[in-house]
């Protein structure tokens, strides 16, 4: 059974404008699923809905979220918070604001262990040191005492990974964890996420707008456009022959690792129009 199953999830702004349109996707236990789409497609919104941190302006108006077989939306708020805290974690999109700039690294990781597992501080501190070591941070003792701004982007991302895995969640939502990093660091971080995911056997929902990294991290993928699922398939099938015209255009617009400077086709106007029409037709059905 899937560890995370989202069914017909609909999220709207308070004024009724839909941000997510009956989204369904599943992540098997221990599996990596990529969630792909251009900026504004609603990728982060899906993660926020699952983790119960939707922005104030947005409202969940329909659908189900099953985490480890349990329907989160039918649970009372307190129980829901506890389930999510114990079973899921987030590697946030923006590494600059993902760590509290006014607090040292140590306490920020220790907090996770105290909040979720109820550990005593000394035990949590020892574990935090181990975790930093596990994400290949040299001199974890010094890093624990540092402030975020004293560390490089790559280091910060390693720390965020350590702290996401800290309480052994079985689902991690990584929201574009490498977007802000330069290419070499990006590769190291991708490798690290894969390594941690495999070692801990975590289900991973890997959000990205970069098809180029998809084949490196995931087995399955979901393509999103304007909050609607366009394609849900496995990675090999997708790269051999994407089913949807929009996916094909998206793939053509992605630089190949084998040929990074090769000619790129932007997604053609006609295809955008077609997919927009598809979404509009879906909306009519949704509202009517």
């Amino acid at each position, binding site marked *: 059974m899937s560890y995370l199953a989202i069914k017909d999830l609909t999220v709207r702004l308070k004024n009724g404008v839909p941000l997510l349109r009956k989204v369904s996707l599943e992540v098997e236990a221990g599996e990596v699923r990529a969630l792909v789409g251009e900026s504004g497609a609603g990728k982060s919104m899906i993660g926020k809905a699952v983790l119960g941190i939707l922005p104030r302006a947005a409202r969940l108006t329909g659908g189900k979220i099953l985490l480890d077989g349990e329907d989160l939306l039918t649970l009372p708020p307190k129980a829901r918070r506890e389930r999510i805290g114990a079973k899921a974690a987030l590697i*946030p999109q923006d590494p600059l604001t993902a760590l*509290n*700039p006014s607090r040292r690294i140590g306490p920020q990781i220790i*907090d*996770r262990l105290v*909040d979720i597992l109820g550990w005593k501080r000394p035990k949590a501190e020892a574990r935090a040191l181990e975790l930093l070591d596990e994400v290949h941070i040299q001199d974890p003792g010094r890093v624990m005492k540092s402030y975020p701004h004293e560390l490089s982007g790559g280091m910060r991302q390693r720390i965020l990974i350590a702290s996401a895995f800290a309480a052994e969640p079985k689902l991690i939502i990584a929201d574009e964890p490498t977007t802000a990093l330069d290419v070499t660091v990006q590769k190291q971080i991708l490798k690290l996420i894969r390594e941690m995911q495999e070692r801990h056997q975590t289900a991973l929902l890997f959000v990205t707008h970069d098809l180029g990294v998809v084949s490196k991290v995931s087995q399955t993928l979901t393509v999103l456009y304007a909050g609607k699922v366009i394609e849900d398939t496995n990675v090999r099938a997708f790269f051999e022959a994407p089913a949807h015209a929009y996916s094909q255009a998206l793939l053509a617009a992605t630089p190949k690792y084998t040929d990074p400077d090769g000619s790129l086709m932007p997604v053609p106007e006609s295809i955008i129009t077609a997919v927009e029409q598809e979404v509009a037709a879906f909306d009519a059905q949704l509202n009517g």
Partner: protein
Amino acid sequence: MPDARGQIRRLPGLRLWLSGGWLLLLVLAAIFAPMISPHDPLEQDLFAARLPPFWEQGADPAYLLGTDSLGRDLLSRMLYGARLALTVALVAGTLTCLVGATLGLIAGYYRGWADLVISRLVDIWMAFPPVLFAILLIAVLGTGLTSIIIAIVVIDWTRFSRVVRAEAMSQGAMDYVASAQVAGRSRLGIALAEILPNVLPTIVALLTLEMGIAVIVEAILSFVNLSISTDQPTWGGMIAEGRTSIYQAWWVLVFPLFALFLTVLSFSQLGEGLKDYFDPVLR
């Protein structure tokens, strides 16, 4: 570039030392006023009226800074005046800060109806001219130290709540808050452990600024004779008295005015310096 940055970083240090030094001097003066004052601040001696400060012709070395029109020793009166000024600064400043920052934090982080109520209150408050508001309040509460402190808190809490609300709101949108929420931390826990440390440098700067403002407000109220009972020396009261004899004895006006100016300036500079000190990114 490193040079320029080095300069910018050294400057707050000097600021901190100068302003801190003056304020420390004031604190000592306030604490030890009864011991170090050369005269009784209330003792009148009409034969020694309007004596100039020591460096002027006709000065009496027993009255270092001279005397006022009633022959009271200016130095002693200033030392006792420091007591009241500092008490008002510390107590009113701290209370205003506590009230304003708490409301601002609630409005900015909890949002919802609490924010609605607090923000409307701030809007209403902003419509009152503060000095008139103060005089009105004192008229209602009666004169006296407690009334002054209450008046300052009631009038000035919005200064904190507006800024803290805005900062708490922007911090609340950061990803580290989202991560803490996912981990199941309570709202109060997040407000205190995650948001507050980020707003603290601003709160500290505002707090010291507020202390300076409290000193001014007390002086203004003394000036219009609405502060403490008239027989207690206050800087504002001295300035009011000095004004009437400015052409015969400038020193009666100038010394307390200068002390007031230095104190208010020191509080604001101390705030700027401490803000940098409290901010891990700038430190």
